[in-house]
């Protein structure tokens, strides 16, 4: 067996998986709290990548150093994505909170189409080259044959963000409020938790994580366009379902499992059906184990 190839695929999968996990967290948190599949979440990720591209381009013209550009672009992308996430919720989901369950889903699909075309009209429908902003430091030389600096950066950043999120949910007051709202929104409201605030915060966190994912992957892959959100969104959703939707550790685990599945399948079998694999996996999980790996099966209440 060719171990070098194996490890390449392993870390390739880990990189992909970390990105999926970052986006999946947004799906799973929103689902946990308002039981809605935020179909436009992939678009928020795309907006993050695009915003970072524009900021990076502008700063590049003014001659900033690469590391500074990366940090500023990522920060701006996070702020804007959080703002987009909150606005999205206010316009498309909040008025529909008591509507039948199909309504917010259709509205989410509409929002997703709207945002894609907003980017096409405001910028372009072409693929845009994304500058490679990650320097290759010397201490990473020994592992350079398996993974590049941007892959290391993706894995480390994702791990740190996820750890921070876990701590936030577990130990802060707001985190507690979020868990309470996820368990039972009505009861949480009766206990004096401002549910609107919690929901907004959920969108802020989910969208920021998506922005981080967007900037990292854009810098790694080297190009962005308006359509990258759709496929990434579906795959991240698959990851969220795989781990058990509504469960935060589940989303992380699901992302990694999906990343490895894809990486090994394309590496050892064939790359023709790379995207179909995620869909097939999604269909299979939903049919055989809809509650996912870490999710709890829910009984239907009448």
């Amino acid at each position: 067996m060719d171990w070098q190839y194996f490890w390449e695929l392993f870390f390739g999968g880990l990189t992909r998986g970390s990105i999926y996990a970052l986006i999946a967290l947004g799906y799973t948190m929103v689902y946990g709290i308002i039981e809605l599949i935020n179909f436009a979440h992939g678009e928020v990720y795309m907006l993050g990548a695009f915003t970072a591209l524009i900021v990076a381009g502008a700063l590049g013209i003014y001659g900033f150093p690469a590391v500074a550009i990366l940090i500023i672009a990522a920060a701006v992308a996070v702020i804007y994505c959080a703002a987009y996430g909150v606005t999205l919720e206010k316009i498309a989901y909040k008025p529909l909170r008591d509507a039948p369950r199909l309504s917010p889903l259709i509205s989410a699909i509409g929002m997703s189409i709207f945002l894609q075309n907003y980017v096409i009209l405001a910028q372009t429908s072409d693929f845009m080259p994304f500058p490679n902003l990650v320097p290759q430091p010397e201490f990473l030389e020994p592992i350079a044959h398996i993974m590049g600096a941007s892959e290391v950066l993706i894995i480390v950043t994702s791990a740190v963000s996820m750890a921070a999120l876990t701590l936030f949910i577990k130990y802060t007051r707001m985190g507690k409020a979020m868990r309470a709202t996820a368990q039972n929104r009505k009861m949480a409201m009766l206990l004096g938790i401002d549910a609107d605030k919690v929901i907004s915060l959920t969108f802020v966190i989910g969208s920021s994580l998506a922005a981080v994912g967007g900037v990292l992957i854009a810098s790694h892959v080297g190009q962005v366009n308006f359509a990258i959100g759709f496929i990434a969104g579906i795959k991240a959703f698959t990851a969220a379902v795989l781990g058990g939707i509504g469960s935060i550790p589940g989303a992380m685990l699901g992302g990694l499992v999906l990343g490895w599945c894809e990486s090994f399948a394309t590496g050892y079998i064939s790359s023709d059906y790379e995207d179909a694999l995620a869909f097939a996996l999604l269909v299979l999980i939903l049919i055989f184990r809809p509650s996912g790996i870490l999710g709890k099966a829910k009984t239907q209440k009448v």
Partner: protein
Amino acid sequence: MQGLKKSILVSLWFMFLTFPLMVIRIDSLNGTIDWRWENMLGMGVGTFVLSFVWRFMLARKEAGRAAAAGGALSARGAWFERLRSDPKAAVPALAVLLAAFLVLPWVVSTYQTNIMISALLYVMLGLGLNIVVGLSGQLVLGYVAFYAVGAYSYAILNSNFGLGFWSVLPIGGAMAALFGILLGFPVLRLRGDYLAIVTLGFGEIIRLVLENWSSFSQGPSGIANIDRPGLFGMQLSVSDATTYIYYLILAAVIVTILAVTRLKNSRIGRAWQALREDEIACQAMGIDITTTKLTAFALGACWAGFAGVIFAAKTTFINPASFTFLESAMVLAMVVLGGMGSVIGVSVGALVLILLPEYLRAFSEYRMLIFGATMVLMMVFRPQGLVSPGRTKYNVTDAEGAGADAARPAAGGNA
């Protein structure tokens, strides 16, 4: 005053939000930045005005809800109600409409007829999806997969075995129905959003298979030189063939409308609507959920299959790019815009969504943007669509005072 302040804040917020994408454009070749401040101004003014409209509409929706709760009937749309329920008005109106559609290809150019053909194709797709989404309440996002199955059935059978349009039409419908059942079986237990996502995945898998399985479907380059439908072996010129296909699709749409209307009021149609309203209650009433769902899937898919065969015959060339998720979303937008469950509504919705962008050329690049916005706004302000589906009502006349108590629940139940 309060409103003014709010609107200014909204406007400022959106100016901030759209700043990087709308204002900055990087010209990476020359290394310059194009600052488009005029966009920001437009955004600010636009959102300022829109926020007033938004609040006004929300207030009106609330008022409408309050009025409906009080039992008041809105006068608006009364003429339309009359047109729909009174046969004396409805029959001439339908006759005029039919006559207009019949003479259309003789008055307008071949180009216009072609646009009308695609609009009618979408009417058919919309009505098919309406069975699944509107009547039985199963949100299917991969509807275009069945359309693809129909189109590819004709393309492959025609180019490999030389089968004609008329012999493939039923085969295409049956193939699509089969795929509908194939999809339906595993997803029987799923509902709502999960079902939506699984069907989306299914649709994408079909498209990816068509793209990658080159020996079967000739991959992304597609299948060309598909025969047009034959008319008793006559050789038709291109413009005559267009007219012929126009009448074909018109007939198909009429058949679809008749079939769907009859289905809606049949035993299975009532079962679908019960399923849509409440799955558990429906089961408790003794309706077999499995057959009900599967028939909805099969019939809905079947129509997409027919439409697919006609589509392949019309364009004589198909490739997987015609069957993307966007197409599914567009058909869904028609159903939503027209009014889920309403046959007239969905037909009008499809015609509006296809014809308006064609004739408003200035807006054609905004077409998909408007599609998306329409879906959101419809859900927020008028979830029942342009035409809310009519319900069969039983009017119980209260001949004797004693019957009042018995009559009330019956009338209330159907209101």
